[in-house]
């Protein structure tokens, strides 16, 4: 028993629980946004579990492949794979088991849902991690597409088809990803330079990166607001969404005109809270 607990403690950081949790919340919100006539808890829980496995699996595979990068970055060198507490083979097996289980479960629940979940995993692991991350700073677009898949998958699972609203919600997440990732790559600029990973700050400079963040924040906030309106969210929820969006926009604009490390860090943290808040509002408004 003790060995299992020790292993779980080692494995847990491989899943990047906060990031996985945030993406999972988008998937659940996508499902709830479909406003199914009858709420099936076993569908809801099954979808949650399959998404968790698929997202965590792709994250573990990402961490397995990037272990050499993690080892040279100050921020990540203590990770279990980077410092040798978990062997690469063990992590690879775990990542594959999670991914196969997650996608397999998703396909069994609904072929369309399974296909989108597989698409997310494919974009994240193959296109983003294996192919583009070490080649171009634009890889984040493909990472963003992968990030938008859980919400699209959740909605497709609820409605039974891919619709414009699902795509709009996925687009909102895609636009949100630069706010999240680029603030992060500015904060750990030196780390990424040491690892020779091309990022927006290293390729285009900080000012262009800040402007990109501001534009993507505006687009993300508008996309979510339009999606919320089209979903028929009550005015109260829309008001709160507008307030939270206002905070995001103000911080994004402040980061362009009064750039400081504090504002940048604030924007990074706030953008996560914003996405979680927006997803909670979409979920609650559907209840």
């Amino acid at each position, binding site marked *: 028993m003790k060995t299992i607990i020790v292993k779980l403690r080692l494995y847990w950081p491989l899943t990047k629980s906060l990031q996985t949790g945030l993406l999972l919340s988008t998937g659940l919100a996508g499902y709830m946004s479909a406003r199914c006539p009858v709420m099936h808890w076993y569908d809801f829980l099954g979808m949650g579990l399959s998404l968790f496995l698929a997202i965590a699996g792709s994250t573990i595979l990402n961490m397995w492949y990037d272990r050499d990068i993690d080892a040279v970055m100050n921020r990540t060198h203590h990770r279990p794979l980077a410092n040798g507490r978990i062997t690469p083979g063990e992590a690879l097996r775990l990542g594959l088991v999670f991914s196969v289980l997650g996608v397999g479960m998703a396909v069994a629940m609904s072929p369309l849902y399974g296909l989108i979940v597989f698409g997310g995993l494919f974009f994240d692991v193959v296109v983003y991690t294996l192919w583009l991350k070490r080649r171009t700073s634009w890889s984040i677009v493909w990472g963003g597409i992968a990030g938008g898949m859980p919400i699209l998958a959740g909605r497709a699972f609820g409605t039974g088809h891919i619709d414009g609203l699902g795509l709009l919600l996925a687009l909102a997440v895609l636009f949100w990803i630069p706010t999240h990732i680029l603030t992060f790559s500015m904060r750990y600029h030196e780390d990424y330079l040491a690892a020779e990973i091309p990022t927006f700050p290293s390729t285009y400079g900080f000012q262009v990166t800040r402007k990109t963040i501001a534009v993507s924040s505006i687009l993300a906030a508008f996309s979510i607001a339009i999606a919320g309106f089209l979903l028929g969210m009550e*005015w*109260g929820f829309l*008001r709160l969404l*507008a307030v939270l969006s206002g*905070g995001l926009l103000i911080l994004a604009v402040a980061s362009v005109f009064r750039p400081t490390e*504090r504002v940048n860090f*604030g924007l990074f943290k*706030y953008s996560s*809270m914003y996405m979680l808040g927006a997803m909670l509002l979409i979920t609650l408004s559907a209840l």
Partner: protein
Amino acid sequence: MCFVASYQIITGVEGLASIPMIAYTVGFGVLLVSGLLLIILGFEVLDSPIVVIVSTIIPLSLSLGLVWEHLAAFRTLYLVFTILGFLAIVFTRSVPIKNKLPVLVLASVHGIAGMIIFLLPVIMAIRGSSQPAFSLVGLGGALIGLGGLLLSFLKAGKPILSRITILKILPGLLLLTTAAFVVGFSAA
């Protein structure tokens, strides 16, 4: 505090026209976003010069909502005061001015808005033209005014309480303020 402010924004106040609804949403919205930023960045964010400008939005918007709702004859006048007062604070805090004008403008705008938030609900509750619980809005106004005064004197280098004490009581004060506003407005 953030949850309480979010609750108020979602539920709103029944039967309101659009101006007071927008005003209350802005007021509670600033409280909410400020609370989130305090959580994310810590109390050092209070040292930023922009705090003076942002913190003006709360009393101005809440008092505008109250005036619009309960003092119909003063609506336009107070709307003009709100806009001009805010612009005056933005101007006097953005341009370096050596005399006491910035302090005077700040004290006038905050003073008038604060007195409206404090007195109007209390007077209405005493007169019986609203529920007694509406006076809690006045209590909320007094509490946030107290917080503002403590921070202002601290910034001016003449602290009433030590910085550590102020920062210790501030979260509780903000929570009580928001709760008093929410309960008070629900009684309106």
